[in-house]
């Protein structure tokens, strides 16, 4: 039987692989593992996953900045939009049901994924 510390390290390692390779999705791997495997309380799992993913993103971002032709000018509008959107999202949270959004999100991911493979 693995200890929670070992499980946490393995979950972090898995999230790291996804985060570094895809530049996204670490939390989608980490949160279910923290809840289902380590039996962490759901709110703690969400919060802890942000705490864990942040340094992983910083490490990956450095690698991407150093090893790819990074264009800050093209990145800027997305970064600015993200900050505004994150702020608005936090303000109006809970006023809009997210269940339907999850389904819509799933459909968009499938369409985009198929396009990424075929095009």
């Amino acid at each position, binding site marked *: 039987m693995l200890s929670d510390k070992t499980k946490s390290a393995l979950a972090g*390692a898995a999230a790291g692989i996804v985060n570094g390779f*895809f530049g*996204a999705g*670490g939390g989608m791997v980490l949160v279910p593992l923290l809840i289902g495997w380590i039996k962490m309380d759901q709110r703690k799992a969400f919060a802890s996953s942000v705490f864990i993913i942040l340094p992983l993103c910083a490490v990956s*971002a450095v690698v991407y900045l150093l090893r790819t032709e990074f264009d800050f000018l093209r990145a800027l509008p997305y970064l600015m*939009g993200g900050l505004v959107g994150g702020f608005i*999202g936090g303000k109006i949270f809970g006023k809009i049901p997210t269940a339907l959004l999850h389904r819509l999100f799933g459909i968009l*991911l499938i369409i985009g994924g198929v396009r990424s493979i075929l095009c």
Partner: protein
Amino acid sequence: MDWIIALLAGAVTGVLSAWGIGGGSLLILFMTGVQGMEQPLSQGINLLYFLPTSLTALVSHLKNRLIDKKLALYAIAAGTVTTAGAALLATGLDTQVVRKIFGGFVIVIGVMELFRKCEKTCRTPSEGTKDTPPE
């Protein structure tokens, strides 16, 4: 015009991220599929984009003592090693190969989102912190 569209796309996915719906993968798909951006650049942008956004969320989580720091440190220690390795690998591979693997990954996530049981797993951190007064 492209600038405004990019700003709006960033804002919409930012809202989704704040609600605990993985906006990042959608943003990458938008950048590559609609805007014709290269896969590594879009992934790099998404990583950078997460840093300030998550910092603001972390402040509230830390205040509410929602983070299991002790366990998290083990995950961070292992995760920083694997993420550096994976990022090195991804930035060394052919971009089209990475894009196709990414496509497969988001299809899996998409199917999971489509069939997830929302009453248990659609809650987000901000929802949780709103429910719980600071300790």
